[in-house]
């Protein structure tokens, strides 16, 4: 069994600071392989978004290095899901408290994959996304945005949502709302399937067809291929004048 992962991030063409944070970790364990792939998009409209995204990524990265190896012997996904939700809620409370103390607002999305051997779990808060790229492209997270909720409730059409001025407004993220309800999904890893975690800045100006064609399993079979494809797409995004920071991570397993 082998895991392949890579990531790339870019400040973009408009922003003065990159508020996104990203983490990829893979490890060999006594039972096989494990991985953490995570993207956090610090809130552009809020001050100190880069601090919020960094704190969340560091928290998960530290957990992977120091606590996760000791959790592996008794690993079960229900407990893992419970622990991830608790961690995200603790981080939310910490950022809300820090913001209140310093009279600032800071927030971040938190979207990632934890993999152990042939199984994985996704966790998600905000409008970053995870796509599964196999013989088709599927979005496996739900956008926690005002317009997505309105579409689901039948109050708005998908076409209206695309041009609605509130299309970037989040209904939940880490550090702003009092309560967060992280979205957790469990699944099995498959051969010839690539998982992509990205910030909204990466996907806004790319079509699903482009994502599918450029990041197919064949074109992302090695770390080097992944890195060159991600960089090509980031340059395309910048040429199309996306104003946000741009961050993407790719992950695949060879079982």
């Amino acid at each position, binding site marked *: 069994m082998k*895991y392949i*992962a890579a*990531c790339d*991030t870019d400040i973009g063409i408009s922003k003065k*600071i*990159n*508020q*996104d*944070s*990203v*983490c*990829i*970790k*893979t*490890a*060999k*364990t*006594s*039972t096989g392989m*494990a*991985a953490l792939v995570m993207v956090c998009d610090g809130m552009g409209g809020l001050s100190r978004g*880069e*601090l919020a*995204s*960094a*704190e969340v*990524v*560091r928290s998960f*990265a530290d957990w992977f*290095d120091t606590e*996760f*190896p*000791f959790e*592996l*012997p008794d690993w079960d996904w229900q407990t893992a899901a419970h622990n991830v939700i608790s961690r995200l809620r603790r981080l939310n409370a*910490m*950022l809300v*408290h*820090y913001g209140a103390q310093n009279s600032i607002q800071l927030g971040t999305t938190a979207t990632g994959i934890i993999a152990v051997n042939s199984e994985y779990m996704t966790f998600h808060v905000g409008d970053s996304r995870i796509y599964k790229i196999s013989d088709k492209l599927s979005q496996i997270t739900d956008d926690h945005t005002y317009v997505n909720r309105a579409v689901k409730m039948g109050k708005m059409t998908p076409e209206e949502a695309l041009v609605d001025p509130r299309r970037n407004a989040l209904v939940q993220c880490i550090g702003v709302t009092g309560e967060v309800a992280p979205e957790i999904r469990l699944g099995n890893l498959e051969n010839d399937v690539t998982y992509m975690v990205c910030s909204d800045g990466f996907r806004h100006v790319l079509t699903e067809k482009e994502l599918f064609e450029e990041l197919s399993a064949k074109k992302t079979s090695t770390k080097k291929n992944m890195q060159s494809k991600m960089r090509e797409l980031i340059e395309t995004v910048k040429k199309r004048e996306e104003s946000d920071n741009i961050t993407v991570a790719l992950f695949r397993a060879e079982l």
Partner: protein
Amino acid sequence: MTTGEILVIAAAAAVFVIINIIMWTIIAKKEKKVRERTTPPADINEKLPDEAAAASGFKLIENTVIVHTNERIIS
């Protein structure tokens, strides 16, 4: 040396030996109690080798963390 003096020296030596025996017995008991307090219960001892083995088998291969601030929030 008179018989009385010899008896006094013998008594002093006997008292010295008895005091030493009592003292070392007390020290040994105290050390035993400390050892009992610092030794983890049997069930924890049994779990440690597995966890240690898992931890020792854990080897990072890819390790990339990209953040854009050195500032930390101390909670």
